[in-house]
């Protein structure tokens, strides 16, 4: 990155390589989830627990299952695990595919004419 640093091979192991390489390994190079769209505010909740020996799940998958005992957004999962949102989407897709989580996607923009929703949000805000 720094133009004054020599791009020598040892640089692969410095701290800059970590956050790039680790998520890539975690998703085995995948950039799209096998299932689901996973908007930044899609909510995920665990519907069954996962043991450490669960086939096909890595420690990050297990961490997400533990984290999502209560519904959390993709953005929250990413922040708690300190991972890019894109990586979390792929991991959530695996968990959805294997039946460990349920997902609720946000309403698309075209459905925003729902007066009941506005009233519920306004009442909730006033009660804060």
């Amino acid at each position, binding site marked *: 990155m720094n133009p004054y640093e020599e791009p020598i091979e040892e640089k692969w192991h410095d701290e800059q390589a970590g956050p790039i390489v680790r998520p890539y390994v975690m998703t085995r190079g995948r950039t799209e989830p096998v299932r689901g769209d996973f908007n930044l505010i*899609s909510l995920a909740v665990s*519907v069954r627990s996962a043991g450490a020996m669960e086939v096909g799940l890595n420690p990050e998958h297990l961490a997400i299952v533990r984290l999502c005992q209560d519904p959390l957004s993709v953005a929250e999962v990413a*922040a708690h695990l300190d991972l890019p949102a894109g990586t979390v989407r792929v991991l959530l897709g695996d968990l959805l595919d294997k039946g460990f989580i349920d997902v609720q996607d946000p309403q698309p923009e075209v459905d925003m*004419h729902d*007066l009941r929703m*506005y009233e*519920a*949000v306004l009442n*909730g805000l006033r009660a804060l």
Partner: protein
Amino acid sequence: MDSARSDRVKAPKKLPTAIKLLVAGGFGVGKTTLVGAVSEIRPLRTEEVLTDLSVGVDDVAGVEAKNTTTVAMDFGRISVGEEYVLYLFGTPGQERFWFMWDELAAGALGAVILADTRRLADCFPAVDYFERRKTPFVVAVNCFDGARTYDLDEVRLALGLNPAIPIVLCDARRRESGKEVLITLVQHSMERNSKRPTPA
């Protein structure tokens, strides 16, 4: 995989639906402060890869015309009842990212544009953007200590705001104040989006 059925930790219940609100404005105007004041959680940070849709750039067959940028966003959460959860995202303050907000603005119920009267021009890109995108927005003038108090009509004039756009004074550090701003935004969004009049 042993006894998958008995692993069920809870009966499937209906998940709430998340709603996105944006907090935009110039760098250092108090976006994260506002998010933190109203959020039920400590503001969190997430990084998202945004795509520049390269509007106006000729696509060359076989050549990837998209540019991507990673931006960090601070966000907070407000649960409203059982059914809905609001997420407030502080949009990146840097002007060069404004054309990348499409992914952030998609599906948003509305936006708060925080303005600092000492640097009013900082929020021009956000005003332009949300006007063009037809995202409902309100302007909240953050009353910094020591800032000269402006008449809101002067600010409206300086920003060239349509008379229908609400503009309010706020103190981004105070929960009550932030709450009022959000209520103003949701009411404005409701008026903009609903075809029918609000039932009495």
